[in-house]
């Protein structure tokens, strides 16, 4: 188990990077974007840094989780399953942040806390999918079975989530061609974009840090009876 001490060394580095990058991103977004206000942008766009960063992380972490699950199923490595389940909870928290900040954004720009807007709806369903994964994992006592079963569920989710996204985006296939959304990133003012991207990087570092912390907890819990754990400095 070389992973455990390595992760222990990496965690403080990731924390430092997370705090510094998020602070720079938010600073840039709050103070360097005065031009955007002249173009008719309202003050509430400042929610976007945290909202977009957490929304991106919610989706990316699902991909990371599925990747670990897939590696685990193919190579049958226990560490990948632990990483997959460590990723799920951080992903869930990112989804919750994205939903809450999205609702607040909605209140300021559309005047309602919740709108059945395709993107918000997709994130609500993503939350349900994450919760399903965590629920299945915690319902199975046998770790081997719970690892593999939840990994398979994550794979099935990966196959169906894009279909759900399509269905939510275009409930009426008669009009779909005209509903095609272009990516809104291109229209974003460059200073706002820098703020968003740097904050997202900070959130990535945060995710790495919490995932490694959780993975270390899972390892300790599962290997509590092995000799290498009882030789650790932490328990002596």
């Amino acid at each position, binding site marked *: 188990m070389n992973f455990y001490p390595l992760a222990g060394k990496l965690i403080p580095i990731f924390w430092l990077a997370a705090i510094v990058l998020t602070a720079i991103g938010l600073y840039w977004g709050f103070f360097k974007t005065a031009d955007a206000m002249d173009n008719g942008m309202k003050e509430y766009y400042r929610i976007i840094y945290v909202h977009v960063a957490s929304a991106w992380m919610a989706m990316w972490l699902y991909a990371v989780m599925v990747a670990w699950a897939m590696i685990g199923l193919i190579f049958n490595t226990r560490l990948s399953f632990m990483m997959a389940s460590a990723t799920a909870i951080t992903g869930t928290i990112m989804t919750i942040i994205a939903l809450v900040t999205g609702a607040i954004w909605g209140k300021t720009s559309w005047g309602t806390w919740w709108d059945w807007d395709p993107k918000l709806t997709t994130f609500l369903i993503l939350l349900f999918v994450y919760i399903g994964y965590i629920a299945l994992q915690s319902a199975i006592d046998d770790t081997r*079975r719970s690892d*593999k*079963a939840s990994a398979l569920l994550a794979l*099935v989710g990966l196959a*169906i989530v894009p279909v759900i996204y*399509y269905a*939510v985006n275009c409930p009426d*296939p*008669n009009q779909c061609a005209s509903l095609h959304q272009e990516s809104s990133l291109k229209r974003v003012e460059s200073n706002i974009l820098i703020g968003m991207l740097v904050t997202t990087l900070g959130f990535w570092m945060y995710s790495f840090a919490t995932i490694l912390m959780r993975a270390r907890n899972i390892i300790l819990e599962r290997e509590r009876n092995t000799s290498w754990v009882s030789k650790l400095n932490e328990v002596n």
Partner: protein
Amino acid sequence: MMSAFWVLLKRDLLLALRRRSEIFTVLFFFLIVISLFPLGVGSEDATLKKIAPGVVWIAALLASTLALDRLFANDYLDGTLEQLTLAPQSLSVMVFAKMIAHWLLTGLPLVLIAPLVGLFYHLPSNTIGVMMLVLLLGTPVLSMIGAIAAALTLGLRGGGVLVSLLVLPLYIPVLVYGAGAISASMVEGLSIQPYLLLLSAFMLLALIFSPWATAAALKISLE
């Protein structure tokens, strides 16, 4: 290979016909949910027509979810399932036979009872036809996606609630286009063909992937 398929299909149907009350429980659950909505939402003609597509589909989702734990539970308890995984025939094929049997017993009755729903909700006759058609296309998908979750939660305590937590979000595409087709059929000049094509596509995808995924899930659960 095919003989194993037919034997298992026949066996499951025969077993179910010996316990006919189980088929009727699902059917009556569906009917009860359907008839609760007018009591709760109000029974004006326009309201009924507006909510009918969604109500029919949500009732169908719930009914098929409730029936899921029966798919493997009995065979798991008496050890038949373990024997099936050891058999030389492909597990996917046998799982597929069990899914078909499950759909014939829980999905098909819902399709056949649909005209009654149409009467309850004052739907025009062509809409009733569309409703039966989309239920015919959609309910097999529900059974096939549900089978994966049923296999994953095999033998767990509180498995029933867990299964609904896992599958209901995954049923959303079928719900959206199934209900959409019924609504579209009530609007003059709207084509329902795109809905039918999408639902058929879902069915084909489920046919390809679900037996395989369910077999993999069963192997994990029985390991």
